[in-house]
């Protein structure tokens, strides 16, 4: 057989590695800034684009899609070429993948701080960027499949299976969850409403964790751990079971993010059952990874690459043990909305994704630059300070989660809440927030040490060149099974069949869950008193979305005595039918706002936005002064109602026609009610006079942003005053 010579594309791997390191530093820096905002809420006072609510999605997106995303591409492009004995199919697609992805990241880094967000977690980017993501992702997938088609290795190693599943599933999830109808270039409304939107979002959200942070990294683990340890994986059979059961089960588990919510019970229970089952494949994978090091543990003592990988796999094991536990309803009742979840995700992100990435970087950089790692000592230092950082981050957050959740639930003997003021529970955990921030400093320090170590390694190395290798091309084998081969060998040499089967595996779970949830929309008990938002309230809601309020405030009162006592009547599915997108939230850094309407007067809200600490002593909410100063551009109100009407919200043509007038009436009413406070009336009049005397333009209070958001907040939860079930009807739709 004539051997063919060809080059591996190393330059694209180098590019992705650089991007990984750059965005890693950025993502972690933003995270650290956020950690300090818990301690100094007004650290970026008055700068809207540096406010907590807008930076939080920037942090999560930067870490997930920029840092981990680029690491995935670097690892996949390196290992795929070697496992398939072929150069990537198309250099052009490789570069489109690289530059396109970086452009998307830059677009995210600009639009998120500006407040362009869909508010759906890990899918915050607005529709034009969503389309770009889909295109670039397809370019990546085409390149991957093209390389498989022209491969010189008959069988596909298990890592490749994980990459295929990653590509297929992320594409499906992203497209379904991002369905929205645009109003303007950077504003759209979700195609789904309320409970249905929540179900689709967490089907996506959970599987973004599964198929973006887990499956590609498992593929990388199955390649890089054997490489670094120089021995094959512990059990290849186990890896096959691991793969199929993981992708088959993972896709069902999404509803565990919505336990005790207004989601139908059956969907919640389905999510719990599958989440508990997930522990089997997850731990199978962890054990397989760790046991690959059998007989090589002496290497772990000296090789920083293996050290990082061992902690990474251990972190994976811890997070995937915790995941199923958190899905149990009784555990979830405590953990949900608390800092426990923050600890959980950071064990995954810092240990599993972060440390695996560091291991891969320390492994690849010397190979690509044809040299040795400049300083093993510094790499070891990075390992220890990073590990310490993870512990210092996670442990205090666990404690904070428990302490706060139990304080929320504590009753006095007379049946009143022991800590009726939410802020008492916040003040109690401030020391834990301090420790977390210090843990973050440690972890970031380690990252900066990596940057320095990589730079001096590159300086002493030579330029990256494409490796020349040779391998025999594949001979043609009949499509059907040959006499000598078993069905294993037959299936495993069919990449497209494999792709198809893995798609089917993930679609089964998706369909069983999504189809009934699409139907359930029609069967949600309709509460006749629940009405669509007025145009002004809708504008206010859009500000609530823009400012990322949902990052700290939930709108979902669970049916617990402690929550009903604190926040009011528990949430009903029928209350959310006009919510596009849904705003359940997933974290209560501040109290739930489901029934905040009418709880305080308009002036309280104004003062609270201006300086939260004056109305609520010890509050860690930042001030939102710009809402009070800014004129509110409500020119799109009619278009917004029209889009909503297209989506099925019952706005009449007259509502759309008269949107502006209706808004003016409601805004004026709020302005008048604000005047009831003599202090406010006095300063307002003085401001007006000052502007007149100095010839400055004066924005009437009724035209400012704060009036819209007050309108929205005062509406929240006020639609139902039902005390028994007679007020609702079931819509049978026949």
């Amino acid at each position, binding site marked *: 057989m004539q051997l063919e010579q060809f080059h591996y594309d190393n330059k694209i791997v180098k590019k992705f590695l650089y991007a990984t390191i750059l965005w890693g530093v950025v993502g972690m820096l933003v995270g650290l800034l956020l950690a300090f905002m818990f301690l100094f809420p007004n650290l970026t006072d008055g700068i809207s684009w540096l406010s907590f609510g807008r930076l939080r999605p920037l942090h999560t997106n930067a870490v997930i899609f920029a840092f981990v995303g680029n690491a995935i591409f670097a690892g996949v492009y390196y290992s795929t070429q070697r496992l398939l004995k072929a150069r990537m199919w198309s250099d052009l697609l490789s570069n489109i993948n690289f530059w396109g992805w970086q452009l998307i990241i830059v677009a995210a880094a600009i639009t998120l701080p500006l407040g362009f967000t869909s508010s759906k977690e890990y899918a915050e980017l607005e529709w034009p960027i969503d389309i770009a993501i889909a295109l670039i992702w397809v370019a990546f997938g085409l390149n991957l499949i093209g390389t498989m088609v022209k491969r010189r290795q008959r069988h596909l190693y298990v890592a490749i299976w994980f990459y295929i599943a990653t590509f297929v599933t992320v594409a499906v999830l992203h497209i379904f969850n991002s369905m929205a109808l645009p109003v303007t270039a950077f504003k759209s409304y979700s195609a789904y409403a309320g409970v249905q939107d929540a179900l689709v979002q967490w089907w996506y959200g959970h599987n973004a964790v599964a198929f973006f942070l887990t499956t590609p990294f498992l593929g990388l683990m199955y390649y890089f751990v054997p490489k670094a340890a*120089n021995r*094959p994986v512990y059990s290849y059979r186990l890896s096959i079971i691991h793969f199929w059961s993981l992708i088959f089960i993972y896709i069902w588990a999404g509803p565990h993010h919505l336990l005790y919510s207004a989601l139908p019970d059956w969907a919640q229970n389905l999510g719990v059952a599958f989440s508990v089952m997930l522990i089997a494949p997850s731990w199978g994978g962890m054990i397989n990874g760790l046991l690959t090091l059998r007989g090589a543990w002496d290497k772990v003592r000296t090789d920083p690459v293996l050290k990082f990988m061992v902690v990474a796999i251990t972190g994976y094991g811890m997070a995937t043990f915790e995941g199923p536990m958190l899905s149990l309803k009784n555990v979830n009742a405590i953990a949900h909305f608390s800092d426990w979840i923050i600890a959980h995700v950071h064990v995954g992100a810092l240990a599993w994704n972060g440390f695996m990435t560091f291991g891969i970087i320390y492994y690849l950089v010397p190979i690509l630059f044809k040299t040795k790692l400049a300083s093993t000592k510094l790499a070891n230092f990075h390992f220890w300070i990073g590990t310490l950082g993870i512990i210092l981050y996670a442990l205090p957050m666990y404690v904070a989660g428990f302490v706060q959740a139990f304080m929320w639930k504590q009753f006095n003997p007379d049946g009143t809440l022991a800590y009726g003021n939410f802020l008492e529970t916040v003040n109690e955990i401030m020391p834990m927030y301090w420790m977390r921030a210090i843990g973050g400093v440690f972890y970031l320090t380690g990252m900066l040490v990596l940057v320095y170590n990589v730079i001096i390694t590159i300086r002493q190395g030579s330029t990256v060149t494409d490796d*020349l290798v040779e391998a025999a091309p594949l001979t043609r084998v009949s499509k059907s099974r040959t006499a000598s081969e078993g069905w*294993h060998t037959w299936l495993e040499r069919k990449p497209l069949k494999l792709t198809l089967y893995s798609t089917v595996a993930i679609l089964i779970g998706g369909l069983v869950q999504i189809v009934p949830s699409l139907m359930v929309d029609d*069967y*949600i008990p309709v509460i006749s008193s629940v009405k669509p938002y007025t145009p002004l309230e809708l504008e206010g809601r859009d500000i609530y979305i823009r400012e990322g309020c949902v990052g700290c405030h939930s709108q979902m009162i669970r049916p617990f005595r402690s929550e009903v006592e604190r926040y009011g009547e528990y949430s009903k599915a029928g209350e959310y039918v006009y919510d596009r997108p849904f705003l359940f939230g997933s974290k209560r850094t501040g109290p739930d706002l489901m029934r905040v309407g009418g709880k305080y007067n308009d002036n309280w809200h104004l003062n609270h936005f201006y300086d939260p600490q004056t109305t609520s002593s010890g509050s860690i909410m930042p001030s939102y002064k710009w809402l009070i100063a800014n004129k509110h551009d409500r020119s799109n109100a009619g278009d917004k109602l029209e889009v909503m009407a297209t989506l099925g919200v019952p706005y009449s043509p007259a509502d759309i026609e008269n949107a502006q007038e209706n808004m003016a009436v409601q805004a004026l009413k709020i302005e008048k009610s604000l005047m009831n406070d003599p202090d406010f009336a006095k300063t307002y009049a003085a401001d007006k006079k000052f502007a007149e005397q100095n010839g400055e333009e004066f924005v009437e209070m009724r035209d400012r942003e704060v009036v819209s958001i007050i309108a929205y907040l005062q509406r929240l939860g006020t639609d139902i005053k039902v005390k028994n079930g007679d007020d609702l009807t079931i819509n049978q739709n026949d």
Partner: protein
Amino acid sequence: MLKFIKGNLEAIDGVSIYPIISLLIFFTFFLVLFLYVFTAKKDHIKSLSEMPINEPTKIQENE
């Protein structure tokens, strides 16, 4: 009161078929998977698992 959160599914026609289908799909899936894995030949499995280790060696190029 429980009407608000319970029984949303019962309203869907023929919904009882869903859990049965789910169970069947599951059972079959894992049965086939285990059969597949445990009937694989040892040599085949071994050659697969050694793929990352047995990569073609780099050829020195004159630069």
